[in-house]
């Protein structure tokens, strides 16, 4: 019988995967995808709680996170493109003019 904890564990795993992805990968786009992965993990946990609590608010929240993720994706990719156009690279290790 699948209880809510199963879902929570799954979303926690997904979330951790996303975080590790952000830390490890070098390509800006891959990092962005990992962040999206984290957001989807959160959506999963929202839906799980909504079902468990039998309240609509969780579902409602998922809608908002999805639209926001979409907007963020648009802006994020635009920024990555702008960076690429200037520096011909998307590897974030090359992008560190500003330090100390």
């Amino acid at each position: 019988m699948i209880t809510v904890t199963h879902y929570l564990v799954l979303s926690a795993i997904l979330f951790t995967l996303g975080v590790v992805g952000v830390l490890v990968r070098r390509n800006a786009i891959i990092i962005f995808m990992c962040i999206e992965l984290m957001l989807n993990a959160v959506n999963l946990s929202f839906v799980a709680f909504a079902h468990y609590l039998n309240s609509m608010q969780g579902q409602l929240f998922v809608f908002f996170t999805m639209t926001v993720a979409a907007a963020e994706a648009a802006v994020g990719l635009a920024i990555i493109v702008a960076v690429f156009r200037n520096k011909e690279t998307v590897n974030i290790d090359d992008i560190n003019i500003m330090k100390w």
Partner: protein
Amino acid sequence: MLNLVGLILLFPLIGTAINGLIGKRLRKETVGYVACGSIGLSFFISVLVFCGLLLLPPGERLFEKQLFSWIESGSFKSTAGLQVDPLSSLMILIVTGVGFLIHIYSIGYMHEDKGYHRYFCYLNLFTFSMLLLVLGNNFLLMFIGWEAVGLCSYLLIGFWFEKKSASNAAKKAFVVNRVGDFGFALGIMLVFLTFHSIDFTEVFSAASHGNFEAGSFTVTIITLLMFMGATGKSAQIPLYTWLPDAMEGPTPVSALIHAATMVTAGVYMIARCNVLYMLSPFTMTVVASVGAVTALFAASIGLVQNDIKRVLAYSTISQLGYMFLACGVGAFTAGVFHLMTHAFFKALLFLGSGSVIHALSGEQDMRKMGGLRNHIPVTYKTFLVGAVAIAGIPPFAGFFSKDEILLESLVRGNLLYWIVGAVAAFLTAFYMFRLLFMTFHGVSRVEHHAMEHLHESPGNMTLPLTVLAALSFFGGFLGIPGASVINSFLAPVFGGHGHTEVSGAEAGVHHSAWLSSLMMVVSTAIALAGIFLAYQMYSKKPELPGKLAERFRVIYKLLLNKYYVDEIYDALFVNPIKKISVQLWKRVDAGMIDGSVNGIARLVGGFSNILRLLQTGYVRNYAFYIVVGCIFIIIFAVLGKVKF
């Protein structure tokens, strides 16, 4: 008549103001007249006050004049008031009298000097301060005079400030006096603490009627501290080194300040507080022994000095030793009497040496003098009177006062005091006549250029000499052992206790007239022996001193270099303090405190640079910091039940 006493102080002040502010524009003569006039007037008024005092019955010869309340804070009241009683009237007579003569003398002596008006302004200021010291009716006012006199001696010693030695001597005098004043100030504070007042009359009446039994701890401490001040001012053993160097100043200054008046302030103070001193026998022995030792010690140094003024300086220290010896054994009148006679003949000797120096246009070394007897006859004759007086040959003044001290020290003190006193008297007679013979008799060793314009001092210098010579002669008759006028005059001040009438009924100690006459004979014999020995060595066989110096080379060198006392003081006090303070400044101030402050600043700067490097510029690192922060917070939030 008595309430004219305020004027005595006022005139010197006016003199100082005039000479100080507009002296530069006045002609030299007017400056001289203003200065001498002010002292003359105050002398005249002192005489009036003295007579006014005599009119009062002997019992209550005490007159107090309150001017205004100076400092008043809580129970600490110090009013500016003047007090005239036999002791202070005698002192103002000496100060203004001798001062007046010296002022006249200085007109001649300082004639060519550029700082003429400045000299007389300081001299008047000195007289004002000395009078304030003597006339003050409370300890604080006396302390003001005490330090003001120290200031004037600083100004006058350092009068020729171009000379490095003069300005050094001035500074040394002031600092050594300040060391003495340190003790005196503490003494005054302790007086205030125990008697809740610093007014003489209140303190002394409280002391005599109060429940202070002899030898009480507090009074002894007070008197010891006061005595420390006295040693500073009157150049006794520990703090005397400044007086010989004070000879850098003009000679009339040495005569007035370092012979007649300022140095006697210590004796006056002890005489004034005789009530307190009588209450602490321990301090009395200290005073007496310091006095005796100083007398002998200074006299021994005086034997070999070659600078004419240095010899007189050491002789002053030794005569002061006598006065302290007298006070120490309780014979305050004898001390004050010797103070008076000493003022006369020591001023005379100094002025005499001044006119010798003036004649030889600045030469002070006795080895370059000799045979001046017939070149400057008046100076010679007056100098002779002074020398005889100080040696203690009857009927001159010195004999009566010194003999009485020796007698009192034998009767009241113990034999040791008398022996030391007698030996010192012998040495005094010896070095005085050594000085006389070396300067006035024998073959003339004067250099060529000094010989041409060797001339007798002008009138206004020789006149004071003759007057002082007369005083040195007649001064003694005031204290003839039989009918001592001065004893009866000063008795009420010293409360009639302690000092024994030389003749007639004595309180306590019994001795007959034959002992006093025996003493007179013995002291005259000692004096004559001293003179004879000096005669043998310095006019009969001049080469004898040289041979003697060869044989006793070590002692001779020791005495010549003043027992190396100055060098010892420098090594013990002056240099270590300088080294310590340099260490303090470099090590503590710049090193520790500033070091630690700048250290903290550098530390924070270092941290700043380290933390700055955390900003690596890589997004991954920043994300990593966020994750680390997140882990800590989660752990802390969920598990952290720690009491904070």
